[in-house]
Each structure stands twice: as structure tokens, then as C-alpha cells.
């Protein structure tokens, strides 16, 4: 994996940080939510493992509006 050393991490870091903020805020919101559209564990898995789109989908259709 010498390619990994070629990458300038200072460049990629903001991307990873943004990604992390998005995932964490989606997770927190999902856990705090009383009820979601569909099972909650499914949304948690989606947010964690489907990069970017999992969190977007959760925010757009996963939240149940009270």
C-alpha cells in the first residue's frame, strides 16, 4: 500500500472531517428521534455503511414529521 503514502493527507483531511460531521449528526438525530419511517436499526446501518447517501436519505425521507 505505498500509494497511501503518496497521498497528501492535509488535502484529503477536510473531506474526511466533513464526512464525519455528516455521519455523526445523522446518527445523533436518528437516535434521538422517537420514531423513524421504517425500522430505526436499518437507518443506523444505512447511515454508517452507505457513504454520503445514507445520511442524505435519512434526513430527507427517514425522519417522521411530528
Amino acid at each position, binding site marked *: 500500500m505505498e*500509494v497511501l503514502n503518496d497521498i497528501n493527507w492535509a*488535502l*484529503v483531511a477536510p473531506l474526511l472531517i466533513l464526512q464525519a460531521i455528516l455521519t455523526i449528526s*445523522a446518527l445523533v438525530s436518528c437516535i434521538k428521534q422517537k420514531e423513524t419511517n421504517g425500522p430505526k436499526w436499518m437507518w443506523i446501518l444505512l447511515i454508517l455503511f452507505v457513504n*454520503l447517501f445514507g445520511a442524505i436519505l435519512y434526513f430527507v425521507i427517514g425522519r417522521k414529521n411530528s
Partner: protein
Amino acid sequence: MNRFLTLLHKEITELMRNGKLIWLPIVLMIIGISQPLTSYYMPQILDMAGNLPEGASITIPTPTGEEVLSGAMSQYGTIGTLLFALATMNVIAQERQNGSITLVMVRPVNEWQYLGSKTVAQLALLLLSLILSYCLTWYYTNLLFTPVDWQVMLSSLVMYCFWVIFVVCVTIFVGTIIRQSSAIAGVSLLFLALISLLTSLLPKFMEWSPGNIRGEATKLLVEQQWTESAWTVIGSTATLSLLLFIAGVMVMKKYKRY
């Protein structure tokens, strides 16, 4: 005016509460930044992907800064438009479904104030996210590729903002007609796609079309001058957006039941 400000305040609280204020800027920034980064690391990515026969060599010309920015534009054009429509589809539909629109409208609030507050709040959020994202992308482009003049960057950004305004106005107008939020997103995206399709099929008759905005913005980046056709497109898009907004208010005035 005072009532309008109160409604606007309510909209902004709503934006905070449903998390749109967080996810939309972040997602747009991710989409924006990944464009210069993937262009920059393209050789390594191809290397990692492998499957190339031994000794094969691919030379990829390094794109100029302007080309990278116009690549980011096309990302905003596809994924971005989808996100904009998804983000705005719920604004009216949700209040109609849970009945809170009736509670608002029995107060001395007219349709102009109601729809205006919604449009302004959405536009503020979307434009702010777009500006943030585009400026970051510009910063990265300057760092990794040839520098792009800030005036060129700014004028292409302003140009592109009109497309966002158009998308929001279309989605909110469709939202006044249809009740279901998924249908709202579907119909407005279909409409936008139709406009883009017609623009590319009949370029002669559709010079004024809002579908030309991205092309004009790209032209602005590459040729670095503001042309006559840019004014036509901007003028027609602004007029169309305004007409759609007025039409939305007219539709709301006709409601017998919210």
C-alpha cells in the same frame, strides 16, 4: 412586513429543527471538493483500480483550473439539482399533511407573505451552501491546479445562482399544486429535465432557456468574458422564476381547503 419577518423566523427555526441547515451545506461542500481532488489524484486512482495490462500507459493531460471548476459545475448540475429539489419538496407538503398550514392561515397572514417567507428561507439556505461549497472548490483548485481569477469565479457563481433560484421556484410552485412530497420532487425534476432536453434538442428556439445557464457559466469560465447571451438567459430565468412564484400565490388563493 412584520408578519413576514415572523414567518421567516419560523421557517429558519424549522430549517434548524429538521437538520437541513447541517446536511445541505456539508453535502454540497463534499460534492464540490471531491471534484478537484479526484481530478488531482486521477493517476493514483487508476493505478489502484488496476486491471491494466502490463506496460500500458495512459497519459492524462492535467486539466486547467477553469476546467476543474466547470467540472464542479456539472456535478452541481446533476447531483446538486436533485438535492435542491429533494430539500425543497417538503416545505409546503409537510405543513399540509399535518394541518399546521390551516393554523397559520387563519391568522391575518396573506398568501404572499406565507409563500414569500418559505421561498426566501429556502433560497437563503441553498444559496449560502452553494457559495460556501463553490468558494471551497475554488480554493482547492487554486491550490492544486492553475489559479483562476476571482472575478471569473464570482461571475460564474452568480450565473449559477440563478439556476438554483429557478429550481426552488419550480419546486415550490409544484408544491402548491400537489400534496404528496415524493410526487412534488418527481414532477419538478421531470420538468427541469424536460427543459434541459428541449434546450439541447432545439438550441435555436431555446436560447432564452434556463437550461442554458450551466453552459453559459462554463463558457464564462473558459472564455472569461460576459457575453450578450448571458444577459438573455439571466433575464429570462429571473422572469420565469418570478412568474412561477406569482402563479404559486394565485394557486394558493384558490384553495378551498388547505
